[in-house]
């Protein structure tokens, strides 16, 4: 069996963005986007992390690979927005990474997952100061706010942010994702309003089931 994620990881590391794109587009002929994100791109990035652990590549190589992966996801995003028609009742989501959070590939994949489901998406990127996101939030008034956090020493930052956002007057739902959600569970943060999302599959499930509650509350 061909290890798609390893093949792709090496294209990333070699800086072969065109070949990587071709490879991904071929995969997308037979597979849904979620499969690409969850079963190929995510494992490819983990595999790249392992190569660093094994002393096979440097951090600079990792940065290049991340850049190419970013390019691929952005490219898919433009393909996507052309196909989706904008009806009146599009739910809205805003996504960002907490301050000092530099990991953004997962967040970007989450943004595309929302887009594929027909949501109106504002992706603000990683490492965002709360004041900045707040001003954007007030302007856009999303039904859902997606926050990504990866490193454990930002747990306190995350708690503060959740506290602050939970009190916004239109009561948006808060989705917490990122590696922190995966490895620490964070279940004590959960409530009616706050949902911890383990991975993209979980997000997709939530998008299929949880959206009704948003329509019911906002309509």
């Amino acid at each position, binding site marked *: 069996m061909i290890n798609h994620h390893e093949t792709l990881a090496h294209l990333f590391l070699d800086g072969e963005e065109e070949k990587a794109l071709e490879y991904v587009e071929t995969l997308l002929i037979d597979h849904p986007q979620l499969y690409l994100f969850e079963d190929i791109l995510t494992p490819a990035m983990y595999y790249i992390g392992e190569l660093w*652990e094994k002393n096979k590549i*440097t951090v600079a190589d990792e940065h290049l690979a991340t850049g190419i992966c970013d390019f691929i996801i952005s490219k898919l995003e433009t393909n996507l927005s052309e196909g989706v028609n904008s009806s009146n009742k599009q739910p809205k989501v805003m996504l960002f990474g907490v301050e000092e959070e530099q990991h953004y590939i997962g967040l970007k994949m989450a943004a595309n997952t929302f887009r594929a489901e027909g949501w109106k998406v504002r992706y603000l990127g990683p490492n965002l100061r709360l004041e900045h996101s707040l001003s954007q939030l007030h302007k856009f008034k999303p039904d859902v706010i997606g926050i990504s956090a990866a490193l454990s020493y930002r747990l306190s930052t995350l708690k503060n942010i959740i506290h602050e956002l939970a009190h916004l007057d239109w009561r948006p739902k808060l989705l917490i994702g990122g590696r922190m959600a995966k490895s620490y569970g964070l279940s004590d943060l959960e409530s009616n309003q706050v949902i911890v999302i383990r991975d993209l599959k979980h997000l997709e499930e939530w998008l299929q089931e949880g959206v009704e509650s948003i329509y019911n509350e906002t309509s």
Partner: protein
Amino acid sequence: MKRVEQSLPLPFYVIDKNYNIVGYSNEAEEELGLANNFLQLLDEESHEKFQKMVRPETIKVTVEINFKKSGGEFQLADLHVLWDSDLHAKVLVHLKGNQLQKVTESLAKLRSRLNESNLQLLEEKEKLEEAVKQNNLLSAPFIELNEETALIPLFGNLTEEKLFAVEDHIVRSAQKEGIDRVFFDFTAVGELKREGITVLNNVISSLFLMGVKVKIIGVKPQQARELKEMPLPSELNFMSTLQEAIQKYCTN
């Protein structure tokens, strides 16, 4: 632990096989600090890698590793390790944080600027879509000519999008008591799209069901040829000009 005699212009440590620091250079103390065990100087996420790569069996190795820095940050370095024996290794540290960090930071800045422009473009696109929607809504005004008759002049290309936008408004307006005849004026219509005509067909069917008669006015020859190929109710009436229609239905 002793300060090594010959001072090197780089951070330099001597460690034992349990990674305890047994010697260090001035630069090591100044730039990276001291601890009993070398692992204490490293970022936690680098511990496993260090332990795997740095062992007496591998006599000489270069490893990229993150050192802890105050405030939760870390700095990247190449470690050049040479084991003298099974017991002791020399570790030369080459910090490369500055160069890479600068590039990384500029890239992150560029990325966030691109993202901002992306957001602005998205906002403009949404404004534009809103304008098109407004434009669509205005493309089929419902004009009451008298108590029984209304005129709907259609404007521009008849797309599915446009007819979806006006569908509701037309049917609602026709619900008004007394309206029993509607003229669709095609004089200002450009292209006909099959999907658009399908929606128009639905609108006309709804009007029929409400007991409203429908007349299509001002169809151009080219459009007439096209309309023949498209799904329209057979009981639909056509008239050539608005003037004719008004004369017939609106003058007592």
